[in-house]
């Protein structure tokens, strides 16, 4: 058995019972091998350090706070109510805003096309229209795409803060 394998074994031995758990063969090896002996001393010190470590007290306030917040989180995870008026109202407004946004987009593109037609070639106007429509669509898409996440976040915060 090489020293690396021996040290792995020593780690288990030291963890399970310290020096008392050493067999004769292991003792002999430790006496002969400075590297393994040093490793075993470290393992024993680690065990001693862990055993004698000062207990870290959990204050009653922290214990109570943990329980309170965890209980809230548990209640929140069991709540089946997804839609409430706080979230339904912005959703309704957002839904109504779609035709307004589309109407406004249509008005802008047609209005500007009408005004700029005499000065700009059709290809430039088409390009401008596509650019405007694409950026407006991306903005609106991003906005509406983020709504479910915002609602979920608001719901979780509300339920956990209860």
């Amino acid at each position, binding site marked *: 058995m090489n020293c690396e394998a021996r040290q792995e074994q020593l780690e288990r031995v030291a963890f399970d019972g310290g020096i008392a758990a050493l067999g004769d063969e292991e003792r002999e090896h430790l006496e002969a091998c400075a590297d393994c002996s040093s490793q075993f001393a*470290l393992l024993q010190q680690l065990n001693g350090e862990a055993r004698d470590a000062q207990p870290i007290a959990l204050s009653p306030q*922290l214990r109570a706070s*943990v329980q309170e*917040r*965890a209980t809230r989180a*548990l209640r929140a995870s069991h709540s089946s109510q997804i839609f409430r008026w706080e979230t339904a109202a912005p959703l309704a407004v957002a839904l109504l805003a779609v035709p307004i946004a589309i109407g406004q987009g249509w008005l802008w593109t047609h209005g500007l096309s009408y005004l700029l037609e005499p000065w700009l070639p059709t290809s430039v106007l088409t390009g401008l229209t596509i650019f405007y429509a694409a950026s407006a669509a991306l903005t609106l898409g991003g906005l509406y795409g983020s709504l479910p996440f915002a609602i979920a976040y608001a719901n979780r915060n509300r339920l956990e803060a209860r």
Partner: protein
Amino acid sequence: MCSDEELMAAVANGDEAALAALIDRYAAGVHAYLVRHSGNRDDADDLLQETWMRVARSAKGFDTARRFRSWIYGIATNLARDLFRRRMTKQRALRTLAMNPPAKPGADSADRGELRERVANLPENMRAVLLLRYYEGMNEAEMADALEIPRGTVKSRLHAALRELRGGYGVSN
């Protein structure tokens, strides 16, 4: 007395008393682990609360074939790791701004023993393995479950951690 896993099954059904019983069993131990892992009691307090909130939120998805103890220590370790990474990023940004020399992690704890100091200064993944092994008394299988890594990786990390500790450390025979 109910096992941890039975209590967790009850928590999954919304049983608040079962959650309280688990908190009674594990809050102090997980807190001590987080204090040692993060090296800061205030951080550990926050992490403990976050850990239990995650337990409560994820109760429905808990696999009762898994051991609860490994699972909760795994959650705590992941949260402590996230905090450690955020802290490192912040420190790097501050160092870049102020051109300060890098501060050694845990250097503020002058009263710690040398060994504790060296454990605190280990890389995060090695420190987690060492703390779970020696302070929490976990075996390789439990550590592998908690850290969600293969047993071979647990062994190699433990070996590397011990090698790191020995480097420059004056062990008296």
